[in-house]
C-alpha cells in the first residue's frame, strides 16, 4: 500500500476552499497541516478585528469563516504543525531570503509565511510524500525552487488544479 501523503494548506487555499463550500469535504480523510502563522491569519487576527467591522453582513461572513476553521483545528482535522526550528534554522533563513529575492525587498520586510515553505520542505526531507496546496504564487515559486535545490519532490496544487 502506498504511503498516505501529507497535505500542507496555505491560508489562500483554506479561504478558497471555504468560499466554494468545500473545505470540510476536501480535508476529510486527509492528513492536513497548517502553520501557526496560518492559524494566526485566519483565526486570531480576524477575531481581534471582528468588533471593528461595521458592516453587519461582512462581520457575519468573517465570523463564520473563523468559526469553521477554528472548529476544524479544535477537532484535529487541520493540524497546526510546528517546525523543527533547531534543525531547520538555516532553511528558514534561506526561505526568507528567497522570498525577499522574488519580492525584490529586504529580508526583514518579508511578510509572506516562510514557515510554510520550511514545513513543506521539512516533511519532504523526512521522506514524506508532501503536497502543498496554495494559491499564493510567491509561496509556490519559492517552494518549487527550494525543493529542486534540495533534491526533494513536493507536489504543488492550487485549488483549481496542479502546478507541479
Amino acid at each position, binding site marked *: 500500500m502506498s504511503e498516505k501523503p501529507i497535505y500542507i494548506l496555505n491560508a*489562500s487555499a483554506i479561504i478558497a476552499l471555504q468560499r466554494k463550500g468545500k473545505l470540510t469535504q476536501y480535508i476529510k480523510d486527509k492528513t492536513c497541516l497548517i502553520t501557526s502563522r496560518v492559524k494566526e491569519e485566519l483565526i486570531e487576527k480576524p477575531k481581534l*478585528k471582528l468588533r471593528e467591522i461595521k458592516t453587519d453582513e461582512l462581520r457575519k*461572513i*468573517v465570523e463564520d469563516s473563523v468559526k469553521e476553521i477554528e472548529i476544524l483545528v479544535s477537532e484535529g482535522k487541520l493540524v497546526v504543525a510546528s517546525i523543527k526550528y533547531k534543525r531547520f534554522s538555516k532553511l528558514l533563513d534561506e526561505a526568507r531570503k528567497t522570498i525577499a529575492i522574488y*519580492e525584490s525587498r529586504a529580508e526583514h520586510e518579508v511578510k*509572506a509565511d516562510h514557515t510554510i515553505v520550511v514545513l513543506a520542505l521539512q516533511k519532504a526531507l523526512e521522506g514524506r510524500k508532501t503536497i502543498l496546496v496554495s494559491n499564493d*504564487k510567491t509561496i509556490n515559486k519559492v517552494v518549487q525552487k527550494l525543493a529542486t535545490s534540495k533534491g526533494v519532490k513536493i507536489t504543488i496544487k492550487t485549488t483549481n488544479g496542479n502546478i507541479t
Partner: protein
Amino acid sequence: MSLAALTLKLRTLANPRKIKILVSLREKPLSITEIADKFSMPQSTVRKYLLELETGGYVTKTPDGKFKAKDFKIVLSLDNLVKLVKKEEEQLTPLIVKEHGTEILRRLKELALQVKEGKLSIYDVAEHLGLTYFETYVLLEESGLI
C-alpha cells in the same frame, strides 16, 4: 471572470482596427512602429490601442519591447451571462468596499500586476491595505487576480 472584467474585455475589442492589430500580433510580435507602418496609423493611436489591449489581457510585451497576442477564449451565451450575474450577486467585494471605501480597489489595482506575477504575496497585500487575510483574498479572487 467578473461581470466588470467581461464588459472591459468586450469593450476593449469593440473596434475592428484593434481586432486587426491583435490578429496580426498572433503571427509574430511587432513593435509600435511596425504596427503603425503596417496599418498606416499614427504611432500615438497604436500606443493607445496597445495599452488598452494589454489592460484587457489580450496582448503582452516581449523582453525586446514588442507586443505579442495572448491566447484567450470567451464563450458568450445567455447561459454563461446568467451564471456570471449570479456569481456577481454572491460576491463579497461590494461589502468589503462598503466597509473600507472605494479607495481599497484603487490601491489593490496598483498591486495587481505584482500579485499576478508572484512578486508580492497575499500577506503583503493584506498588510499594505490594512485588511484581514480573508478580505484580501476575496478581493483578489473576485478581481480575477488569483
